[in-house]
């Protein structure tokens, strides 16, 4: 019984290569040319070339390079976000909500103040976390290096990244204990800040303004329904209390959700977080435990803040100036 002969092996390769070349050349070249052109070059309009600028990202001790992400971007991202990052991938028309337009460099989930660019870490987290209630998957199968490279890659689509620096991450104070008082205060803020107008009185995303909302590209957009989802319900920008806190204080850029950083104090923001958690009726968390201990009733908020010292009679301002 013969063993493998090297010459036979080489012959097999040659035997394959020659007809491969011939048949490819004669049979498929026409198809190749037509279809490659169709794939790589739009049939109408100018073609904005994707130039992979030497953008970088920095995630801890990892440096991401845009050039290394070109293949991954085409494989995983371009179908929705578009080859040119303009949210015009072939699937975009079918998606709701629409994919992010990288050419505007406006990002929903940030740790930075509204209107500023996000940090690399913010974008890195967004890729790995995905976006609940959207078509953006959880890309946590990538290596950290791949994600860092993709963060660098999406910067090539907007000149903002060349001229601006990312904003400073906001400082998040330690979370105070969850109490029925904090939940009550949060409920009062929910009413005072008119969150209910969009999110509805029970947080079900059915407020009177809900049907009128659009994003910055005039696409209809729905406010978050806190009551939806099961025990593992996630918010668009994360699932922790800190993530919710950041949403108030940074806003969700590109949507009607504003930043309340100039309106409420940090401790008030935490109270609002505690209240919003109770709207997630299917979630088992400490907020709902506190609420259950209070027999499911949120008492009316009583402002126990010490009143300011009385002003001299001659300086009294009508209406209190508040």
């Amino acid at each position: 019984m013969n063993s493998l002969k090297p010459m036979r092996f080489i012959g097999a390769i040659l035997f394959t290569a020659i007809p491969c070349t011939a048949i490819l050349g004669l049979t498929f070249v026409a198809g190749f040319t037509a279809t490659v052109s169709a794939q790589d070059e739009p049939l109408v309009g100018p073609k904005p070339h994707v130039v992979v600028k030497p953008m970088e990202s920095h995630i801890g001790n990892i440096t991401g390079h845009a050039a290394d992400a070109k293949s991954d971007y085409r494989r995983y991202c371009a179908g929705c976000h578009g080859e040119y990052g303009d949210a015009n991938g072939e699937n975009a028309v079918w998606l709701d909500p629409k994919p992010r337009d990288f050419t505007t460099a406006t990002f929903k989930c940030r740790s930075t103040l509204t209107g500023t660019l996000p940090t690399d870490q913010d974008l890195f987290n967004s890729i790995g976390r995905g976006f609940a209630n959207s078509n953006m998957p959880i890309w946590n199968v990538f290596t950290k290096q791949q994600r860092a490279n993709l963060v660098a890659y999406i910067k090539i689509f907007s000149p903002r990244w060349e001229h601006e620096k990312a904003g400073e991450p906001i400082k998040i104070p330690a979370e105070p204990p969850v109490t029925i008082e904090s939940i009550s205060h949060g409920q009062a803020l929910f009413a005072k800040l008119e969150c209910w107008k969009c999110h509805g009185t029970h947080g079900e995303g059915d407020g009177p303004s809900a049907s009128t909302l659009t994003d910055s590209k005039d696409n209809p957009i729905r406010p978050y329904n806190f009551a939806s989802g099961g025990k593992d319900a996630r918010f668009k920008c994360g699932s922790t209390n800190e993530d919710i806190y950041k949403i108030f204080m940074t806003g969700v850029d590109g949507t009607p959700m504003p930043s309340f950083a100039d309106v409420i104090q940090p401790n008030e923001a935490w109270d609002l977080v505690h209240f919003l958690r109770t709207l997630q009726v299917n979630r088992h968390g400490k907020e709902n435990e506190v609420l259950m201990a209070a027999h499911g009733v949120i008492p009316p908020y009583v402002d126990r803040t010490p009143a300011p010292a009385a002003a001299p009679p001659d300086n009294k301002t009508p209406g209190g100036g508040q």
Partner: protein
Amino acid sequence: MRMWAQSHLCQKPQRITSVLAAALALTCVILGASQSASALPAFARKYGLRCSACHESWPMLNYFGQKFKDNGYQLMNDRDAPIWQNPGYWPVTFRITPIWHRVSTNKVQVDGSAGPGGNEAKITSSGFDLSGLDFHTGGTLEKNFSFYVLPSSDATASFHFETVMARLDNISGSPWFNVKLGKFELDNLLSEKRILTLTANGGIYQLYHFIPLNDHNIFGQMGDNQLGLEVMGHSYSDRTRYSISLLSSNDGQVGLPYGSESYSTFITGSQAFDAGKLGVDRLGFYVMAGVAPTSWLTNMGAPIGGSGTQNKGYSREGFVGQFYFGHRVDLTVVTQHGEDSAWFGQGYGDFVDYTTALCPNANPTGPCNNVAGTTLPAGSRSPTWNGVLLEPHYVVSPQMILLARYETIRMSQQSTPGTASNLGNITTYTFGYRYNPFMTSRAGFAYHGEYNWFHQDGTSPVTATNLTSSELLFGIDFDF
């Protein structure tokens, strides 16, 4: 079932002799090929993702696709339930491959030729051909309730159910507990149902179907879909995963055609590692072990299906490694050590389609039947073997992949003493490319070219010398 037929083609020359003499059996096999791979534009349409998101090159899954599958065909973005789809959405995909191929086998039994090879001749043929047709339908019935049904035909439109399964996902909210019931592909990291190659011998993993010459244990073919119950689980990121399956020992054939109480199990586990710039690499193991019958009640000498008893054991075990070297080059390695009971090695086991006597002490016109008082020939041993599979890929771009495969299987112990130690050894090479001229979420289309060379020691039908075959194939592989 295509894989089953091919396996027997390769390892049971005494059975295929008549087929080869009547026609070009390899051609027939590829004619009847039902490439049961699972590239599903229906999923891509549902989620708006390109094929390339889940497939290194469709139908082979990449890591993201594996995670999607492990989540029960869900992205876990709270848009998985059908309620989120347009009511007109219908998750069906069909796949078929028109091809041209040239097939050559060096020793086919023929009448009237008495050359140096005895009544054997080399037959080479070429022409245009078709694969079988697959209708894939799968997805979610509700969040965490998924299904997959795959009616599959040969090239003459004779259908069977290749896959039928329902699955409960994330039981108790945990990704570590998912249950699947029905007929399904085994949880092989390198899945034969997602193989990139199409030729008769290159379109299967020989390692997943190997049966020693004259052995009649068909029940350990890891490449065939099996009937059973699978419990599998994985970490949130799918880095760690396991599965345990309880299977009927019937090689996926419906109707309880074999043993009355014959079961097998298939167990896998793997762990992936973030290898930095190299990518995500994975190491794992698998074990398939079980028992299958060797004794049958008979009616007028013919075995009665479902009456099988006298179970005997078998096992297949090995390691799997998936190694990435950047985003262009990867290598998958699968090893195997296999062992069958000496009873199987002496021809007991499968009786379906059995027409040739192998048992020296049994009914000369029927299958080996381990009835009371039956003894094995003196010195009979459990046949054992070792094998390895290497499959490197070079990803030119998400649209083009170059692939190769080398498989070798070496007998380490023959069942019958004195048998040539290399009898039945297999060596096979495959080279090819797949080019997707476009990438969308609507359909799959690939220009496919492939060459396979197959060699098995001592299995030619007349002279028991080396059998060699080769196949060159070009085709257009598409699904929609």
